[in-house]
């Protein structure tokens, strides 16, 4: 099982990274979701126990799934959820200010703005000395 867990987690992570390297902001967000899924599965897998749900009263003969990693995974899930919601909202904000959701487009726009700024900027001391 260890190897299987590891391969699945690696696949999740790798796919996430691939998406994060794309130009499309929504794909980047999806990539981050996949990476956090990989992290959650790692947490769960690190419990290394499976069995009945940890709800009292327990059946004495059976193994119990580790409740601590479950609690931690839950916390991680919820925080991941909040972060993703923020990322999506920020992507929307980026679209609204740049009229594009593509990082390459945005880079180009920024570069143009930077060139414009260079052309119009007054050095701080010019007005003074």
């Amino acid at each position: 099982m260890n190897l299987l867990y590891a391969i699945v987690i690696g696949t999740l992570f790798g796919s996430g990274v691939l998406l994060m390297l794309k130009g499309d902001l929504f794909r980047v967000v999806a990539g981050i979701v996949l990476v956090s899924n990989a992290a959650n599965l790692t947490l769960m897998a690190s419990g290394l126990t499976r069995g009945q749900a940890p709800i009292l009263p327990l059946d004495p003969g059976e193994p119990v799934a580790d409740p601590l990693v479950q609690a931690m995974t839950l916390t991680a899930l919820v925080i991941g959820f909040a972060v993703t919601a923020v990322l999506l909202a920020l992507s929307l904000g980026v679209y609204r200010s740049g009229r594009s959701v593509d990082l390459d487009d945005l880079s180009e726009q920024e570069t143009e703005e930077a060139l414009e700024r260079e052309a119009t900027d007054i050095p701080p001391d010019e007005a003074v000395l």
Partner: protein
Amino acid sequence: MSGGPTKPAVSGSAAAAIGAAAVLLVAVAVLWASGGGRIDLPWAPAWDLRLAFGVDGLAALYWYLAAGVGVLVFTYASAYVPRHLAHDERPRAEEWRVHAAMTLFLVSMVGLVTSEDLILLFVFWDLTAIASWLLIGFDRQKREARLFALMALLITTVSAVLMLIGILMLRAEYGTTQLPELFRLAEPGTTVAVAAGFIAVSALAKSAQVPLHFWLPRAMAAPTPVSAYLHSAAMVAAGVFLISRIHPLLALEPALLDALLVIGLASMALGGVLSLAADEFKRLLAFSTVSQYGYVTAMLGVGGSAGAAAACFYVLAHALAKSALFMTAGAVTEATGTKLLSESGGLARRMPLLAAGAGAAAAGIAALPLTIGFFKDELFFKAAAERGTWLAILAVLGAGLTFAYMARFWAGIFLGAPKGDVQHVERRLVWPVAFLGALVVVGGVVVAPFADLARSAADVTNGGPVDLKVAYHLDTRTENLMALGAWATGLLLFAGHAVITPALRWVERAGDAMGPERLYWGGLRLLNDLSDRAHDFEIRDLRSRVAAVIVPGGGLVALGVVLTPTAGAYAVGSFETEDIALGVTLVVCAIAAIAVTFPRGHLALALMLSGVGFALATAYALIGASDVALVAVLIETIFALLFVGVYALVPQQVLRREARRVEGRSRMVRDLVIAVASGIVTTLVVWSALSRPIPVDGMAERHIELADDAHGQDVVTVILADFRGLDTLVEITVVGVAMIIVAAAVRTRTRA
């Protein structure tokens, strides 16, 4: 000017500021009369920081100055600032900014002078810098005001970093930042020398001493009451205050004192020359301040009983007179509309009270008899003469310069032929000057109370009792001869001003061309360019930045994997029949994850992503984590809806254009290589981690046992809501904050 400002009443904010200053003045009077006082409260006990304040002689002197001059300057400001705002056609409502910042400054100043802990002192030091930044940049619609406010802030706070380093060095060496402790423990040595040197550099920057003097004339961009306060009695005084405060440490290293002496003399000379060259009232006064604090720095460099006494008395006498002169400059500009000596004259008859007050103050700075200033020079000459002949000569020359530019200032404004119209100004612009002028004269007759205050301050500076006696002596003692020499030199310089002006202008131009101010602007420009470059580099390819984080990070982790001994690190683990369902689910999950990277359409992307999530939720359920499975299902549902909801707000053509975009081949290969490599590294790391679980026997069992005590049956919920409740509290706080961000980001419309 639009229709001429009407007579403004004192606004509420001004009254509050005046009241605060008056309360603080009464407070120091009561405290000092009752022999001082101490407060010592724990602040951050783990770091041995205490809120330790004490009123000793030195604190009392500067507190008196800050609060006393504060009352007068704030009163002046209550009439001046409304006029200032009216000239710039700004609403009068902005007035409170000045009063609030001035009060902040006053309070920080009181905190600064009473601090007995160097860290505490540093905090107030930076607070005064912030207040002064707000004040100098008050005319924030003017580019120059903003630039010069920044200059004052940078010079005083960047140098303050040196001070902090010095403080931390002392703390590392002696384990305390409490001043009394440090004075007890400190011994001559490199640490003390370097640390005290650093602190002194910061203090000299604040007192506008050469070569960091150039910010002070620039800070004249501030409204005049600000200059009258910060640049006479408070901010620049804070620098020499700090040197006085740590003088016992400085005195351990004679080289430091010599450096102070040299810097002080250089400032005295350069300030005097540039002041004599200046045509603008406030520029003249600013360089005069540089020069006058040069005297004080030099006296602190001379040290000993005489030096300490001269320095402390000098600060007192100078602050009274100088703030009166700044206020005079403001009142004259308000009455005549000019800021230049060459355009003014003959005001003595039109504004007699102002002329008298300013005359007394100018005489005080020029050290004429029957003013408190006479004694400041007497003490100065005495200390200089004790040190040696060459210093005595320099002292006389410096005092001569002072006499000359003060004579120029007063005579230029009040004597000669009247030029231009004179408008009526409020009494509040005049009587603070008259009051201070009167005080300067009273001090010249009844000097004992002033001398007592200065003496108790000098005791602290010197670290022992000093000998401070002042009186008029009608004999030919050295001090009197030196004073006569200074007046003669001054008269000569004043009379021959027209002759020496070209030389003075040359010094001024040379300073502009190669002075340290060039370095400041050059440095600022360099930093600006650097930041632009870094920004451009950063944004030119945002996507490479993502890779730039992942690749080195992954590389480091991979290095860790390679370096870890492999023996027993990787175990395949058992795979039982009952694991088949879980295994299949996990494989489905992996396939789904790979599939997410394929679709071009955005809707398919979101759906496949939730496919991964649901597969994972199933896996959780199979492991036996029903709580996690439930939450995972719910979250995946919400995710899918969120993605779709956000898509709905982005026009279809934008999404379609994005979906049709074709990647370059090399780019795709590069991304794929990075992704596969990071997947493999992750697999290895997770595999080795899972293969060697840290034995934490009984963690799970213990939690399950305790759940009953917590009256719960679902152990996971018990852990979340009880055992690890703090985690959950933080978690829901994150959710709440995220909600605020999302709602705000969704609502904010595009900037035009």
